[in-house]
């Protein structure tokens, strides 16, 4: 079976033509032959303007010769590189890979080390090669609770490595990953962290330096590792503007402490601010998309006395890691000729892949028992949104079935009570925790299916009733694939089948809580506090340049100053017409107060969030409380291609905040 980039089935002949077209285009460019005159000289263009019937010269031309239309002037839509989104036939698909023949990798837990040499120091150990912006804040607050050298230590070394694990139908791939001492891997090892147990990670950059073996075509071996969603002191947050090359390291202090511990809920913090599913990823300014795509990402699961990791205690959620499984989703592109992972370095809009990976493997399967599982689902992008359905009866008699499951967490933070859903939608950097009960599917096969229609980096192709009207300004696209005439959600079984569940027929014991009994988790923190200030952030595009309030990312400028231990409202507004921006804010979670002045209704909008999808023509009001830590943090779009092209702003927390309403 052969597919184009949009997953549409194409014939073998058509596929060969697409490959030929790509090759021809490369040759034409190499030869500088792209004008009509050149084509004419080469005998490829007839006097009447028709491309001669040399099959495969251009997929677009092919379509036009079929319909007897003359090709447009040279160059349009047949050029290589970026922005081919309007022309599905113009981009060859990745090589074919077989689905559901490789097991889902269960990411191993990170291994601690007993000591680090040299011993971590409160001030950056510059002499030893450490690159850190400031001394650790936590030991300065309480050196007994937060000793400079905590009992739990990790050494994560970032390395280049090769793996043939992505698919048996592809050659070995060169990736960047994290090595906790057991060998480099991607996704990186999963942290199993606990509230009340501070820890320190030494992040060592041992990627190829500028004098070593190549990066295979993309990636910048200069890093800053961010712990996404953590209530962390700024010097350990992994700021995009603090980065270091191979041969250097940064000690990052993770206090694992609840928000409010040093302010309104001293000394232990607000239990309603408990976090559970965090992730870490490279955040190097301007190069985040490439570096995470190349593998620099992993999970950080945080537990406490309620969310214990055991189905015998606390909330009795399925036990970690046996029945509580982190799933990292991303989409990638492979060169059809070499089979190698590729990244479009020259794209400004967003990148979509045609291969769907879970935990580093293309379309894996997972054998499950007929019982409840907790899945922590993370979309690492670069630019794709997913709407996950649990689909059964694929390929059987009758239609595929859509089966409900339970949402228990948004961005990895448990919501007050489980909500039964038919599907959940997540964008880049968002997480959801779900419980799937396989007990009534013993002996059957189910799929996690993405049924969301997305054609390009702009975001989901069309809207559903929950979203504001979307402008469709497509012109040349309209005859091919028009966002206006495509439904937002594909029919069951017609989407991307990403993960296959083979449910065992053998009954088993399940001690975990049944979400259908409506158990309670944490209550939502109050949002009634009067904000000290309301700030507005306009997400826009000015002459192709992604901007916030008409300005661009600048590492040397703090755009505004938040007052420590104060509440604020932020208004995110989207002026970019038909783009969805997943907006992420570091340090503190937020709650969505309203979308276009209407209280949110979508289940994934109801909990605590660290990323909010900002849809076209929307104004979203967020509630924040900035507590405990001081220092610098960013707000940015987490479509990492937008982020890398300056849709970001730095701000900082200081004892006395400013009154800049439009930073």
């Amino acid at each position, binding site marked *: 079976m052969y597919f184009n980039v949009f997953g549409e089935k194409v014939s073998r002949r058509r596929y060969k033509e697409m490959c030929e077209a790509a090759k021809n285009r490369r040759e034409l460019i190499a030869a500088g032959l792209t004008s009509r005159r050149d084509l004419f000289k080469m005998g490829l263009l007839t006097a009447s303007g028709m491309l001669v019937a040399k099959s495969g010269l251009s997929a677009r031309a092919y379509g036009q010769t079929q319909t007897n239309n003359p090709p447009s002037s040279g160059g349009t839509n047949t050029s290589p590189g970026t922005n081919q989104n309007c022309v599905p036939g113009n981009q060859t698909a990745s090589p074919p890979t077989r689905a559901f023949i490789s097991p889902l990798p269960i990411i191993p837990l990170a291994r601690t080390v007993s000591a680090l040499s040299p011993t971590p120091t409160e001030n950056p150990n510059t002499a030893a090669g450490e690159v850190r912006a400031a001394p650790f804040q936590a030991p300065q607050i309480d050196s007994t609770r937060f000793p400079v050298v905590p009992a739990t230590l990790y050494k994560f070394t970032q390395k280049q490595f090769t793996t043939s694990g992505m698919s048996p139908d592809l050659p070995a791939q060169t990736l960047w990953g994290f090595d906790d001492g057991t060998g480099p891997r991607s996704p990186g090892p999963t942290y199993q962290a606990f509230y009340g147990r501070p820890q320190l990670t030494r992040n060592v950059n041992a990627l190829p330096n500028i004098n070593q073996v190549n990066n295979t075509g993309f990636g910048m071996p200069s890093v800053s590792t961010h712990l996404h969603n953590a209530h962390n002191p700024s010097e350990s947050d992994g700021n995009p503007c603090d980065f270091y090359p191979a041969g250097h390291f940064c000690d990052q202090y993770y206090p694992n402490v609840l928000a409010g511990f040093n302010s309104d809920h001293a000394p232990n913090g607000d239990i309603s601010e408990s976090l559970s599913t965090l992730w870490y990823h490279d955040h190097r300014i301007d190069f985040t998309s490439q570096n995470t795509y190349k593998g620099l990402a992993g999970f950080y699961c945080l537990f406490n006395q309620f969310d214990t990791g055991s189905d015998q205690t606390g909330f009795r959620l399925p036990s970690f890691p046996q029945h509580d499984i982190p799933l990292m989703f991303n989409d990638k592109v492979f060169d059809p000729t070499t089979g190698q992972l590729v990244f479009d370095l020259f794209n*400004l809009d967003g990148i979509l892949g045609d291969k769907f990976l879970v935990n580093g493997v293309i379309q894996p399967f997972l054998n499950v028992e007929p019982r409840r599982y907790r899945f922590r689902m993370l979309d690492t992008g670069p630019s794709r949104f997913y709407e996950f359905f649990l689909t059964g009866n694929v390929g059987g008699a009758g239609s595929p079935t859509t089966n409900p499951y339970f949402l228990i967490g948004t961005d990895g933070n448990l919501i007050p009570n489980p909500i039964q859903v038919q599907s959940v939608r997540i964008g880049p950097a968002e997480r959801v925790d779900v419980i799937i009960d396989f007990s009534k599917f013993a002996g059957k096969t189910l799929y996690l299916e993405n049924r969301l229609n997305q054609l390009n980096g702009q975001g989901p192709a069309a809207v559903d009733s929950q979203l504001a009207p979307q402008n469709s300004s497509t012109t040349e696209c309209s005859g091919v694939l028009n966002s206006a005439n495509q439904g937002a959600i594909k029919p069951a079984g017609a989407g991307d089948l990403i993960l296959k569940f083979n449910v065992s027929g053998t009954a088993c014991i399940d001690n975990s809580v049944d979400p259908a009994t409506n158990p309670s988790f944490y209550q939502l923190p109050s949002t009634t506090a009067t904000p000290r200030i309301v700030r507005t952030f306009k997400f826009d595009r000015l002459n192709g340049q992604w901007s916030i309030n008409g300005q661009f990312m600048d590492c040397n400028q703090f755009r505004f100053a938040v007052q420590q231990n104060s509440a604020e409202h932020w208004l995110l507004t989207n002026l970019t017409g038909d783009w969805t921006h997943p907006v992420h804010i570091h340090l503190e979670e937020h709650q969505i107060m309203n979308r276009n002045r209407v209280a949110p209704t979508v289940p994934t909008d109801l909990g605590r969030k660290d990323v909010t999808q900002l849809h076209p023509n929307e104004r979203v009001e967020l509630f924040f409380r900035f507590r405990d830590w001081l220092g610098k943090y960013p707000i940015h779009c987490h479509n990492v291609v937008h982020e890398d092209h300056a849709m970001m702003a730095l701000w900082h927390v200081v004892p006395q905040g400013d009154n800049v309403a439009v930073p």
Partner: protein
Amino acid sequence: MPDVSRRKFLGLTAAAPLAAMALAKGAAAETAKVWPTVTEESARRRLQQLNLPNLPLVTHEGKRVLFYDDLVKDKAVSFNFFFANCDEVCPLVMANLARVQKLLGNQVGRKFFMYSLTLKPEEDTVEVLRHHRAMYGAGPGWTFLTGKPDDMEKLRRAIGFSYPDPAIDKDKTQHIGNVRYGNEPLMYWSACPGMAHPNFIAESLAWMIHPDQSRVQAS
């Protein structure tokens, strides 16, 4: 420049074990697929073919040059698009770049090469380019370029200065004001807004000259 030291490592690429593994895996698949060997040079060539076409251009001095061979190969570079008769974004970006060149000092022309390419080759003749360049006080190492309209259009798309929406893409008043920067031999590429603060544009470009430097920003 790193390309000198890189040469001695050419023999050390992961190509050989990669190819061997590919063969073993290919045999296991239904169709015995033999993947071509991938090397540092082939990865670099792929980028060249897709994004850095070797098109003939003309400089503001009337010199004929090839885009890849003469302007990009083995260099750290920046690109932006403009046209002389532009009164919207271009003057802001070009004035910024003039400041960037001053900030980078004598590295420009030696370790870094700035290129400004016209969006209107029909209007922007060599003479217009030369005049326009003088207006911004551009020093050595900042080259203004024109070429055949088809070639300029090809180049614009190849190096990522186009919109996904063809209607917007045709509107030159909305043309993309970014500055793309890269280090060709090391295959590092990104871009920043041309309307950003010139200090930060200069800093971003300098990452391509000295990619092995660290950075911290105290708060």
